[in-house]
């Protein structure tokens, strides 16, 4: 049988074409379409603007049809004014399709999190069978506010070559305009006529970008007004302070609490002197009694609901909940600041040198004599003073009366915010199955995830979480508990379980080998740039088992990595202690991270061999 199998493989190996696919970097980027485009953005004295786009796309393959897809956003502040489209078959020269505004589809932007919104779009999809085709599109949208100006991206799609692209911005000189050019290599022409400044940016012959193109290299132009208005609220964005002052004014007067509610707030903090304690009590009250509902209606996308309405409905969006929390703290004589942030666990930081509306979320800052207390008012899980990965470690705009300032949220990248400890007792039986009791303590960022597990998963899912995250596979959880033991702002969770481990040891012909039980580190252990992990085991062995060879001892001390693995036998108990301490350099790329993980896991996830001195295995190899 063996020879036969080998034979099959020899033949099949010979038959294999010897093309090596190890490196598959395409040398040329396929081009699906070619774009030439002129955009004109006209800002008006009344703080409105219109945006006109005139584009020609030569679609050379079916994949390029997506590049000709038009989607025009509208809501209560923005409207679609004009749309004209013509598709020509470039082989025959014939026009094969014409469309206007009335031919566009209309749909709501669908969000699973937003309940009340008015975000919609009109769209048109081009269909064609033969290529190349030329798609000519003219569109115009207008906005009632210049608060938010569109950004210009000369190469809007991957696999799209751009022959020429231009953007002209016309604006009343007295209103002012700020911009930031990123990776633009073309020309800029500026002129002023009769109080209107006109700037044109032109780019030519831009190469097609592959799908894995580094977005940092993407040419783009960011725009922001100086003088602006939204509804009847006008302001100046010349500085961060100006924008912050305007935001403060926009919410002015919307923080009035109903008297009975104010009374309740005061009752909650009666007799409490410590400012953090007061913040904590009120924050926990907010978390318990108010829930997050996303609401994005017109100016309501930027202006908060009134605190009274949030109290009335017991729900609000990030603006409404933050504004209410601010009002509650005001009632308790604790000043706080409504703070704008660009949120998202993978979001890039804002452009700090372009004061403008770059934000999508609101949090609250409570100044203290030392570090401010940060509150994420949409979370009903996090402790007061801790921001999750949605808003941590980034620039934010703190608003206050008459101004504000840019500052940074905490990064939580020290060991105290990234620690995991575990203590396990294991009793092994003769057949290799085991009883296990484990207690784990999670601190900081790791605790925040356990808070989610506790708050959002049902019992079956929690047991499954324990099983999947067990450092030994085959865990059957019997009893477990998850407790929250936050230390002020530091999230702390304690997790304990009793369980059975199926086949904790593997039986080979001569030995019993413990399955790896210390657990491997994965990329998630490194995301917060530091880690302290201490794991201790007491493993009670069957009496007949004797350690085979020396017990491993590993000690490693490098610039950013300290590690120690110690094992000792006391009677029939194996004691194991592993301690890892890491500081991850910021500049480490993915490959280097993977290499670091491999190194740690190879060195520190060791197991132990035992010889069973009483039994003889019956399954000897067939031909020994």
């Amino acid at each position, binding site marked *: 049988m*063996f020879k036969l199998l080998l034979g099959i493989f020899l033949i099949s190996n010979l038959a294999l074409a010897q093309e090596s696919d190890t490196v598959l970097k395409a040398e040329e980027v396929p081009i699906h379409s070619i774009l030439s485009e002129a955009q004109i953005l006209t800002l008006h004295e009344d703080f409105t603007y219109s945006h006109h786009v005139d584009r020609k796309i030569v679609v050379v393959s*079916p994949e390029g049809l997506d590049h000709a897809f038009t989607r025009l956003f509208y809501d209560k502040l923005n409207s679609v004014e004009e749309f004209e489209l013509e598709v020509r078959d470039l082989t025959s020269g014939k026009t094969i399709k014409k469309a206007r505004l009335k031919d566009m589809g209309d749909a709501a932007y669908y969000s699973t999190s937003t309940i009340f919104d008015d975000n919609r779009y009109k769209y048109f999809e081009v269909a064609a069978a033969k290529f190349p085709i030329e798609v000519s599109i003219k569109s115009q949208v207008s906005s009632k506010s210049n608060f938010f100006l569109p950004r210009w991206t000369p190469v809007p799609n991957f696999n799209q070559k751009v022959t020429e692209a231009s953007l002209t911005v016309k604006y009343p000189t007295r209103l002012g305009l700020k911009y930031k050019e990123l990776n633009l290599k073309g020309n800029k022409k500026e002129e002023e006529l009769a109080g209107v400044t006109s700037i044109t940016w032109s780019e030519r012959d831009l190469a097609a970008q592959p799908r894995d193109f580094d977005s940092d290299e993407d040419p783009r132009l960011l725009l922001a007004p100086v003088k602006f208005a939204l509804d009847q609220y006008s302001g100046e964005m010349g500085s961060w302070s100006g924008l912050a002052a305007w935001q403060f004014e926009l919410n002015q007067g919307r923080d009035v609490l109903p008297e009975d509610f104010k009374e309740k707030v005061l009752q909650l903090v009666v007799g409490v002197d410590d400012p953090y304690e007061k913040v904590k009590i009120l924050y926990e009250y907010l978390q318990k009694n108010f829930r997050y509902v996303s609401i994005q209606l017109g100016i309501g996308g930027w202006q908060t609901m009134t605190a009274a309405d949030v109290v009335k409905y017991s729900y609000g969006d990030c603006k409404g909940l933050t504004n209410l929390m601010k009002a509650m703290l005001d009632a308790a004589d604790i000043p706080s600041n409504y703070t704008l942030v660009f949120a998202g666990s993978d979001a890039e930081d804002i452009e700090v040198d372009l004061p403008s509306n770059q934000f999508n979320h609101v949090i609250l800052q409570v100044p203290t004599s030392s570090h401010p207390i940060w509150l994420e008012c949409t979370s009903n899980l996090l402790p007061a003073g801790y921001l999750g990965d949605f808003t941590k470690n980034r620039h934010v705009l703190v608003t206050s009366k008459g101004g504000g300032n840019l500052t940074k949220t905490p990064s939580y990248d020290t060991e105290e915010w990234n620690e995991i400890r575990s203590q396990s007792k294991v009793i092994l039986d003769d057949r290799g199955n085991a009883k296990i009791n484990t207690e784990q303590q999670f601190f900081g960022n790791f605790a925040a995830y356990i808070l989610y597990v506790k*708050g959002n998963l049902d019992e079956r899912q929690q047991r499954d979480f324990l099983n999947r995250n067990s450092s030994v596979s*085959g865990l059957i959880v019997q009893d477990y508990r998850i407790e929250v033991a936050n230390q002020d702002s530091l999230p702390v969770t304690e997790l304990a379980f009793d369980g059975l481990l199926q086949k904790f040891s593997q*039986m080979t012909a001569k030995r019993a080998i413990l399955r790896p039980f210390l657990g491997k580190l994965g990329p998630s252990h490194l995301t917060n740039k530091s880690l302290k992990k201490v794991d201790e085991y007491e493993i009670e062995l069957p009496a007949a088992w004797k350690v085979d060879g020396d017990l491993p001892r590993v000690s490693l001390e490098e610039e950013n990595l300290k590690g120690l693995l110690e094992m000792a036998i006391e009677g029939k108990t194996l004691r194991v202690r592993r301690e890892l301490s890491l500081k991850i350099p910021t500049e480490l790329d993915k490959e280097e991270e993977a290499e670091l993980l491999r190194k740690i896991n190879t060195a520190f996830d060791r197991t132990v061999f035992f010889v069973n001195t009483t039994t003889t295995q019956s399954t000897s190899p067939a031909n020994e």
Partner: protein
Amino acid sequence: MNKKLLIAIAVLLPLFSPGQSLKMGEISQEEFDLKEVSYEPGASAACLVAFGDSRIFNGTLETQYFYRVKILTEAGKEHADIRIRYYSGTGNVENLSGIKAQITNLEGGKPVVTKLDKDDFFDVDLGDGLKELRISFPNAQVGSILEYSYKKGDKNIEFLDGWTFQRSAPVLFSKYQIKIPEHLEYKTIGQGANLFSKSERTSEYGTFSWTLRDLYSLKEEPYMKNYRDYMDRVEFQLSRYMSGSGSGYSGGPEWTDFLNSWEKLGDELIAYYTTKGFYRGNPIEREILSVDMSGGTEQEKAKAAYYYVRDNFVNEGSDWIYTDQTLPQLLKSKKGAPGELILAYMGILKSLGIECNPVLIGSKGYGRSEIVPFPFLNQFDEILLLATLDGQQQFLDLSDPLAPFGYVDLDKHVSAGLLLQKNASKLIEIDIKHASNKLVFSSIALDPETGELVMDNAIRNTHYEGLAYAHRIKSLKDENKPMEDLFKQTYEAFEIRNVSVNDQLEDKNTVSIQFQSVMKDAAAQDMLVFNPLQISEFAKNPFTQDFRVFPVDFEYTFRETYTANVAIPAGYVLDDYPTNEMITIPGSPIGFTYQTENLGELVKITAKFEVRSPLIQPESYGDLKFFMESVASKLASPVILKKTGTL
């Protein structure tokens, strides 16, 4: 808790619990007192009552819906945001009216009711005729009881949507009743294990009802992509209607069949496809004039035609039994949905003189695990072809642009379908034969020069295992990623080198991959400890949940065979190796063997993992979980080579 005991409690509970009120505001003390769902502890909310009451009035189906939901945890507050989607179309096909909602909170032990008004309801036009009513309950707290009701009018009375019993939260009580007028007759289509084994049914004066209690919430489970096919549901298909009043001179009332025979149903579909041009020969013959399909066997002709359609038409759009385009439009656009392409392919085969016909099927995930045995069209959503090639019948499909001739999309591997033949349409069994296997051969040796332990691995994936690999390879190529990524995660501590791929799926039904996995500095260690069979995805048990609600679906039968030949290096002895093992579960739907042979200078390790029956019921889950854990443990077992000290 013991699962049998759980089931017993679930069955007994209805006998002890008083009937839930189906009226808004009539909340029982038990409902106020409920803190946890006994059979689903930790559930964030419970649907206390779900009730649907339908009647047909003036040619419209009117259904009064009523729900009562209790929030049990902080996370359960998300149930206070309700979304009700309906199809309005251009002619108000469905409409909602009479929306009422209220929330009840206990304050100081007394119920406080807040009624919602119009401002709390938000109707959103999603586009394409779809609308969504959204309700956001104010003052939602842990312990709140939310109630809402509305009436939905539906102008379609040929097929009635009926009722689905499970929801995203566990359902304690779900009842649906329908009053069928005397002049209409419907066939009931029931589905789901609970509906057949646990439902309480009544039938009285034309009103029929079904009640189910204590249902698990709907949650995803691994190895079950199409749980929709296993949900408990009742639906109705109009079968006949009465015309004539029976008074005066008009004669007695007469029943007219609405539901045809399979033959008539088939003929209607054939007529539909004919009007769309798919049964006309001329356009298709012109289309293929330039393609040489003249020579060879029918099998070869069919294969050539398959690749012509697959490679010259863009496959885009939803797989569906109805077509958006006519055949001439499809031939012009060169782009079509799978259903359109397969009908065009049928035209080519017919023009080549090959006997072939469409087969309508209800694909996996379309809502049914079994075929409905009466002529009910709505159960079908996709098309296959049944062709006779050189005397052999073969099912053909065109859903997957990567699939070679003869492959049928896995969602279409169902038990039966409707064969369309003029005057002779009928249900037929579908049995798609294939030998989907994975054969892994590893040759393991220590390189004395580099001191590396090198595993030369060859994987040969056949049929659907090969197609799955072809998709993974294409995805890496599309993302411009190296082929090493195929194995990186599995091997962790090993370095992956020299990956080469040979896709011979079209000619030999195989995708072969060769690569090396290398343990560096191996020679420096006194004991070489390594796992010789690292490639199997079953080296980790995918079944970690305590219990199972839906069956485990491996999708198709397959066998994976792993062979590793370990050459004993000079200066080493084989010190230890995993023991032999052969395991299965009752009924043997799945099996595993592991064998070690010492051949002197070589140790041969062979493991076989076989799925013989791909659908494993929840009752066998405990056994399956234990089985898979044993497999995982074995596949992770090491071979140990020990230095003897002398070369």
